[in-house]
């Protein structure tokens, strides 16, 4: 990892307009509601949080697959926030995405060869030695048999399909990849294979990764730093080791304490923080601190004042009464 910043996100907001059915008043889903962070070259930032907290939306907005509502995205020194389609095309080669669902992410009517070579075609790149040769080298690199070049997605298992998605994403040697739950649909034994593959590729090519996941054990393994999201906002962000050992935000603590570990003796004696209720609606998030409806440390101030992210020890925390 170097100290060069390749991606810088400032106050990114993505609101989706929705029609409320009852009073037909227009309202918005505050999917991403003001997040900021930097990503260094070769670094992996884990993005965790419960379903619906805005992880996928953050990833897609950063890649400009959906237009941000406001905020700033600087990629390799260029402000791409307002770049339109044609200007993004040249940058796309540098920014790729890997999807969660290895079943729906691949076109069932295209051969693996065709799927993996798509980035060359879109970018009109003619790799040395020809496209087929380049694709087969990629297949070999991600652990697929190059002779399966002409096969179709349905002939592959979930883990193999994820390898196909990864081959496609790294084809043009991008600087930055958003990996949106890349191993969530995979079984443990296959999941470890794919995590190791991502690890290797990243080390060899120096790629920066935004690794989106809800599994905190997986995230600890792969990330240099971790950001914890809740209802569209970053609650805590910091180096992985510090965040896992000495988190300051009540939500981070609750999340970590909820993850069961494959260790029955410690599990049976473990104290858990059981949060009440579930995630409030992002259409009408609580005022003040968005976590206040489930937080066991809540006080009056939490219901009226939005806590800002401030440095506390090794992590940055958005809480009025941090641990």
């Amino acid at each position, binding site marked *: 990892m170097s100290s060069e910043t390749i991606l810088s996100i400032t106050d990114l907001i993505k609101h989706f307009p929705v029609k409320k059915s009852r009073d037909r008043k227009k309202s918005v889903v505050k999917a991403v509601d003001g997040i900021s962070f930097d990503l260094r070259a070769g670094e992996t930032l884990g993005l965790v949080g419960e379903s619906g907290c805005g992880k996928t939306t953050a990833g897609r907005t950063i890649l400009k697959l959906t237009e941000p509502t406001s905020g700033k995205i600087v990629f390799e020194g260029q402000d791409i926030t307002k770049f339109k389609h044609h200007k993004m095309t040249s940058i796309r080669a540098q920014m790729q995405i890997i999807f969660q669902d290895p079943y729906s992410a691949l076109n069932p009517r295209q051969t693996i060869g065709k799927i993996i070579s798509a980035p060359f075609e879109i970018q009109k790149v003619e790799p040395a030695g020809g496209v087929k040769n380049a694709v087969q080298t990629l297949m070999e690199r991600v652990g697929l048999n190059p002779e399966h070049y002409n096969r179709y997605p349905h002939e592959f298992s979930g883990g193999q399909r994820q390898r196909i998605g990864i081959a496609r994403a790294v084809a043009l040697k991008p600087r930055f990849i958003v990996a949106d739950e890349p191993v969530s649909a995979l079984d443990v034994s296959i999941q470890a294979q794919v995590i190791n593959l991502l690890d290797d590729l990243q080390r060899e090519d120096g790629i920066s990764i935004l690794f989106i996941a809800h599994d905190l054990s997986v995230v600890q393994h792969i990330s240099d730093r971790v950001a914890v999201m809740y209802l569209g906002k970053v609650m805590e962000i910091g180096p992985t080791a510090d965040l*896992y050992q000495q988190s300051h935000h009540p939500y981070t603590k609750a999340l970590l304490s909820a993850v069961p570990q494959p260790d029955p003796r410690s599990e049976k004696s473990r104290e858990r923080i059981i949060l009440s209720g579930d995630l409030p609606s992002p259409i009408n998030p609580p005022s003040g601190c968005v976590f206040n409806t489930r937080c066991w440390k809540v006080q009056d101030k939490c219901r009226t004042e939005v806590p800002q992210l401030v440095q506390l020890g090794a992590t940055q925390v958005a809480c009025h009464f941090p641990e």
Partner: protein
Amino acid sequence: MTELLRISDLHVAFPTDDGLVRAVDGVSLSVSQGETVAIVGESGSGKTVTSLSVMGLHKKGSAQMSGSISIAHDGGFLDVISAGEEEIRSMRGRSVAMIFQDPMSALHPYYKIGDQLAEAYLVHNPGKKKEAISRAIEMLDLVGISEPAQRAKEFPHQFSGGMRQRVMIAMALMNSPKMLIADEPTTALDVTVQAQILTLLASLQKEFNMGILLITHDLGVVAQVSEKVNVMYAGRIVEQGGVDDIFYNPMHPYNLGLLKSVPRISATGSERLKAIPGQPPSLISLPAGCAFAPRCEYIKFTDGNACATLMPELAGTSASHTSRCHIDESKRQASFAQAMKEVR
């Protein structure tokens, strides 16, 4: 402890266009009052087919079944495989109830929550509508739904994912079953909600002394709630034992492989994961011997051909901890102990 369920040598196969799918191949296990028995395994290993067999839920004619499934029912025992549809219906929900992975598909979208709960009661208590409704409200309250009388009049889409799973649990409890089968009850939920549901299940189990057969692919969940564990691979139980045996003294190379490959939250941080190479076999063309052989690195500790040609029996030095493996016991102990040092 009273035994509530005993499965002996269960085989379930489905004829398909591609050939016979051997989904469950010689499964034996039992569940007693007050205990939680887990079945853990990867997707397609036969967990759900096993649980649907217990409930008598395979479509007539679609599944070829053999073996026996004996359920404590009305003071005696009912063998689900040979029983008639009538007897199974009287057992289902009353002696054993099931909680499914996806509550949305198990609940009808157009009926009120309370009516759906009541229906589960009316199946076994025809005509007792009033009693059914008050029981529904009582059960909603028991699983932690606030203002239960009010919420009973709402529809499934008005409930969050975690609340729907609570409703599923309430529905399973409507007829006070002695046993619950929970097939991936928290897989669709976030960890914070999973923690709520697992805590709820544990307290209900204590209160009613229920036996629980918990099906999951999550080793963490297994460690948290179960006393006995069955590790399944390609339709077979490859290791069976107490939870500590399974996690601290694995006997089967597949179980060891799982323990090594699962990421753990640890103080030391991120060492490289030790993945199991390859992938599970197709259930249509299972190898003649051990189904794990193509991925196993311990064949070298057996006497040559056995792994490829002979299916190992479940066996062990004690009856409470067994595995299906040809490995030489003394070689296993030394090499597995070494490998377990790398875990954690």
